[in-house]
């Protein structure tokens, strides 16, 4: 399907620690962070990754749609990330050099993102769809995109999105996750809008070295130009960061006949129930 319509796609997203890493909170110079934070392997925030897949699909389905990735994160980590990401799909990178982490206020991150978006040459906000993950794997607050949208004057916003279906006139429908495994379907007249993606429906984009080479020629200068921004937030602090103490004493039951296991489980399910 091809649609004769152009969107300006802006993806907001940055790095998070690889989910397979163990994390330990530390306080350095009065600020909360993670032990060996700069040494931890980082990946693109998983829900942002989904939004990148969806952006690539939407670009293919439409005409002249361009994709901009706006990333606020430590320059060195962004550079490492780009080695992988550049091979996925064509995009322009706008990098902002700043810390990335769960204990940073989403208000300052949103302000940095909004400033960077406004400065993208040729971007028409009236045609813009701001993409991103509906919540990060670090702060997991699900607030940054709303704040970015409001700062850009975009009031149509959708979160936990698993599907966006464009129509010929530039309008589209979205499916947002709601309670009890259901989705809410909404029809939108068109851009501008903010779309916070959940998992979406697309497989991981394959690596394409040709796109990688093309991208990297633009990405390296973009990283070189990355402006350093201070994300400190007045009057905001996260304190007493700690790992949960909980570790269970697991009772491992072996060689019990299936009927006896089932009887124990039935008893457990029934226990503590009212009536």
């Amino acid at each position: 399907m091809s649609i004769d319509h152009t969107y300006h796609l802006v993806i907001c997203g940055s790095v998070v620690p690889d989910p397979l890493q163990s994390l330990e909170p530390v306080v350095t110079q009065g600020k909360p962070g993670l032990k060996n934070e700069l040494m931890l392997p980082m990946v693109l925030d998983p829900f942002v990754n989904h939004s990148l897949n969806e952006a690539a699909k939407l670009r293919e389905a439409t005409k002249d749609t361009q994709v901009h990735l706006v990333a606020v994160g430590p320059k060195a980590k962004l550079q490492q990330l780009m080695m992988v990401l550049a091979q996925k799909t064509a995009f322009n990178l706008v990098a902002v050099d700043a810390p990335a982490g769960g204990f940073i206020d989403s208000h300052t991150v949103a302000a940095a993102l909004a400033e960077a978006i406004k400065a993208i040459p040729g971007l028409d906000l009236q045609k813009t769809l701001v993409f991103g993950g509906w919540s990060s794997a670090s702060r997991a607050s699900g607030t940054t995109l709303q704040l970015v949208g409001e700062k850009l004057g975009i009031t149509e916003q959708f979160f936990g999105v698993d599907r966006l279906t464009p129509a010929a006139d530039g309008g589209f429908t979205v499916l947002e996750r709601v309670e009890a495994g259901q989705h809410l379907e909404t029809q939108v007249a068109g851009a501008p809008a903010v779309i916070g993606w959940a998992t979406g429906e697309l497989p991981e984009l394959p690596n394409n070295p040709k796109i990688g080479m093309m991208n990297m020629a633009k990405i390296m200068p973009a990283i070189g130009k990355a402006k350093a921004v201070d994300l400190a937030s007045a009057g905001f602090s996260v304190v007493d960061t700690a790992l949960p103490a909980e570790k269970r004493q697991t009772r491992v039951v072996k060689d019990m006949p299936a009927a006896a296991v089932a009887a124990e489980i039935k008893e457990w399910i029934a226990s503590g129930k009212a009536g």
Partner: protein
Amino acid sequence: MESILVIIDAEEDKPLSGQALETLGAAAALSAIVKKEISVGLVGSGDLSKVATALAGAAAKAFTFSDAALKDPGYARDAFAAAKLVKASGAAWVLAPASSRWSRALPGAAERCGGKVDTHITSFEEKGGKAAAGRWYYRQRIFGKILREQGPWFMTIETGSFPKAAVGVGAAPAVTPVAEALPASRSKVLGLRSLSGGKQTIKPDAELLLVAGAGWTKTQKDGVKHAKEAEGLILAFLEKYGASLGSSKAATDLAAEGGEALTFMTQLHQVGQTGASPRHAKGLATCCFGEEPHVVGWRFINERRAIDLNANCGWAQGKADVLYVADVFEVFKELAK
């Protein structure tokens, strides 16, 4: 006057959700620290003054924003209405349930009121005479407490974190309707959809969560796969024990790829790092190794048991209370009796 405003979606003649009452409970906990009065802000359709009256004892004042277009959730309309209620009430703290509706719209309302927002709050405590709000970071791996000096401070309250407020005793709150027209909208709600083909297997209110992992559709000891039988056993279990269904990422991915898989699994079932962190009193993991990216989604499951063939799986490492090293097919046939 500075107060605590609790924003709730409401409909005439409909009882408030448990989540709404818990948020009022959270307001009571916050009020005990900051010593301020509690008001409610009702957003919805129909005559909301009746709903306000039913909140006697839990709030001193009520502000209502009623419009037929607010029956369904929608960011633009909800953020607008919530911001108007906050301005009318002059609140310094604004709480709302961490439901899909308010998780979306409350941050927008905060920005419109020049406020600050934090989400998924699970506790309040006093720190140096101020209220600190507790929440999880890094997908339930690290706990921390937030202090903010600038307000109004908007927060969504995580379910299952605070006791429900008692309502219907004492004086009814004084009701102030906020009469404003909603702005012209560029979006229209079409309705609810179910991508899993109709069968409702996710039940947030269930006492028990059953997690089905990828092992259910792997080659079994007789050398073949038994996906159809697995589906039958799982659905029978859900029915018989009123359980909600969750899955591991591996099981969800298999379903998305087609082939030998549990066909009713969707991404919404996935529990863990990139999935949900559901809240249930009990959880039973089956055919799921219990790797860390999966188990972080179990933070809010109190009692945990697992069935797996592998005595050295993740659940054995202090992640479950009991691990049954057993063949799930045999156990589930017994459980179906």
